[in-house]
């Protein structure tokens, strides 16, 4: 049985958010939907300026909700036309620590998995570029001619442990000595499953859980990765590079 490493993408390997890059550009080109183009841009500005503590969650949730609620009115072809053009120059915009860890584990024969809350169209492009062995993103179901969305969405940002269990079964993998790396609360369930959980640039929710369990915490800031390990009741800076 093969060991694996499972990575979240947005905020963990990728410095930005795959889905946002695309949704935002569609809004800038006024091609998202007339009711939400401006609202998306406004919410983005207020997050950028950190106008409130939960500005990111607001931007994240409200934009997703608006897009989801208007899904059947949106035109997937606009999206298909633009996605490669937007993502191609951004694909190597990755964190140094997670990219190196992924490469090292790959060299050791680990099976590398991505579980992302971004849409499968973006995740496909990103995962192929970085050499993942298998991956999953959120699926926005389309009609048979692929020219309309049906409105059905298969979510992948929660219950990540169940999604992981399917990968483990499908590829005959073992949790023993395996790795999980994530940056937010949605990743807690997969970090709980593996021998080597890593909280990377964690948000408050994940940080609290990491401290409770003594998980490794890694912070990358200005190309320095601070690797903190829990020993004798405290976190110690084990390494910085």
């Amino acid at each position, binding site marked *: 049985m093969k060991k694996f490493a499972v990575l979240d993408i947005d905020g963990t390997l990728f410095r930005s958010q795959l889905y946002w890059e695309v949704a935002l550009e569609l809004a800038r080109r006024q091609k998202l939907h007339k009711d939400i183009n401006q609202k998306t841009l406004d919410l983005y500005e207020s997050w950028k*300026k*950190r*106008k409130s*503590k939960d500005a990111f969650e607001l931007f994240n949730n409200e934009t997703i909700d608006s897009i989801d609620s208007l899904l059947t009115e949106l035109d997937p072809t606009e999206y298909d036309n633009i996605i490669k053009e937007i993502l191609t120059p951004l694909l190597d915009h990755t964190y140094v620590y997670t990219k190196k860890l992924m490469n090292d584990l790959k060299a050791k024969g680990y099976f590398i998995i991505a579980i992302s809350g971004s849409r499968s169209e973006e995740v496909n492009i990103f995962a192929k570029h970085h050499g993942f062995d298998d991956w999953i993103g959120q699926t926005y179901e389309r009609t048979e001619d692929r020219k309309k969305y049906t409105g059905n969405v298969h979510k992948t940002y929660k219950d990540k442990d169940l999604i992981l269990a399917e990968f483990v079964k499908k590829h005959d993998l073992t949790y023993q000595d395996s790795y999980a790396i994530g*940056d937010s609360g949605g990743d807690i369930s997969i970090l709980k499953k593996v021998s080597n959980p890593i909280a990377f*640039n*964690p*948000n*408050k929710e994940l*940080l609290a859980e990491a*401290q409770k369990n003594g998980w490794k*915490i890694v*912070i990358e*800031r*200005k*190309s*320095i990765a*601070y690797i*903190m390990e829990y020993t004798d009741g*405290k*976190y*110690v*800076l084990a390494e*910085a590079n």
Partner: protein
Amino acid sequence: MARQFAVFDIDGTIVRTSLMQLLVKELVNRGQLDGPKAGDIERILHDGRQRIDDSVFGSYMKQAFDLMIQTAGSGLSLSDYTEAITAVANSLNSTSYVYSRQLIDTLKKNNFFLIAISGGEQRAVQAIASTLGFDACAAGVYYLDDGKILTGEVQKFEAKKDAVLQAIISKYDLNTNGSMAIGDTGNDTVMFNLVSQPIAFNPNQALFKIAREKNWMIVIERKDVVYGMQMENGQYVLKSVNV
């Protein structure tokens, strides 16, 4: 008795980016700079800040300023420039680090004398310092004007932050004992050597290397979390996590 002081760097320490980047953005918003051309200025400044070597950042700022003057076409008027500075100073709440703002508040309550020393432009540095209630400040450069427009000439001031700080300490008869310095790059280390509580905040590689040699406290702000690391028996220990 002589007062204790705290000296702050501004770019990357109080504001998340730099005063000049904020000014360029503000001038674009006001229609005084062309967006795409301002993008080039932004890139020069961004690249400059990402460099590991600190000694060249000044030349990036000069390059960016030259481009700013060229881009402004018929000239950047003094009143447009000072109005943009006021707007930048008034929006500090959304462009500055939470940790630094809270530290400033705490130090004020404890009657510290607050100093800002920046490589930035004098009018901008003064506006930031006065908005935040600092007691003294020093800038790196001054953009000359003819009463109406910025001429494009740049007057340089003393660049060594230790010499600048030493002059302020003497002038106001301040006490280095118990005093604090906070900065994010190698340029700030010389002022760290003058105080008893240096803080390397989101340090770049040059500062991090020295901080580790000298056992200085390291503070990182990332997402909605602030990490404080202190040296204990030869290793950094995570002491406080908050915001």
